[in-house]
């Protein structure tokens, strides 16, 4: 079987991604020191989502692997999202 068809990612790519991730961590810390209520929460979570996307795409190789992995991952996240949404149909309207 196709056991050796691997894409080798140069060190440089990982270091760049790491720099971006650390930068984004810094931004989210800085932003959340200013209290803007709901917006703070939204920004912090948005940045966390973007960061996790970088981890998934580069560190976890979704970019280089079979598309199927990405489809599955997105599907699982969507499912989790919908479950949270449906749960909140109870709490938001109680």
């Amino acid at each position, binding site marked *: *079987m*196709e*056991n*050796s068809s*691997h894409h*080798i*990612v*140069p*060190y440089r790519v*990982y*270091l760049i*991604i*790491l720099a971006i*991730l*650390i930068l984004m*961590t*810094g931004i*989210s*810390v800085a932003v*959340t020191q200013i*209290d803007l209520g709901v917006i*703070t*929460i939204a920004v*912090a*979570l948005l*940045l*966390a989502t973007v*960061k*996790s996307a970088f*981890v*998934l795409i*580069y*560190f*976890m190789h979704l970019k280089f*692997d*079979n598309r199927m*992995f990405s489809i*599955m*991952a997105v599907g*699982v*996240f969507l499912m*989790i999202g919908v*479950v*949270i949404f449906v*749960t*909140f149909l109870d*709490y*938001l309207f109680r």
Partner: protein
Amino acid sequence: MEVHRDDEGSKIGMWLFLFTEMVLFSGLFIVYSVYRYLNREAFHQAAAHLDVALGTINTIILLASSATIAMSISAIQYQKKKQALALLTATVVLGLVFLVNKYFEWGEKIGHGIYPGSETLASYGHGDVLFFGLYYFMTGLHALHIVIGLVFIGFVIWYIAKDRITHDNFSVHENSGLYWHLVDLIWIFLFPLFYLIT
């Protein structure tokens, strides 16, 4: 039976396992978001008790360890065994530093009487009880995953040293990387939820 090797298959298996881990934690995220919604003010205040600097350092440590393990997989493909071992060792060291920081963080909180079931914590009110209950439960479960990941990486180091993982047979190594990134991924969400949204 003949030995049957299917790297793609074992990678699918690993991803499926990671999905179960994500769903496992998502159960806790549901609990967190519901209680945050119900105790907005208390969660707001309680989060201010956590040390943002320490949390930020730990975040950077985990991100760096993710980068080193990812690079070690490139190293093994480049057939640079020494570099791969060095990068993996760096990952383990970073993971241990994370745990040490966590230990001091927990120790400090427990020293102040903030732990589940304590009188002090109960006197703060319901929101704080739930916030710190979730804090201990979620970071504790996360730390447990770090420990498991470290053991896993330990095996990978052993296998590389013994040449059981090589440039054309490194599926186990790759899967250990996936697992470690998942641990990172969860922390990326835990960090803002507990430390930043104050």
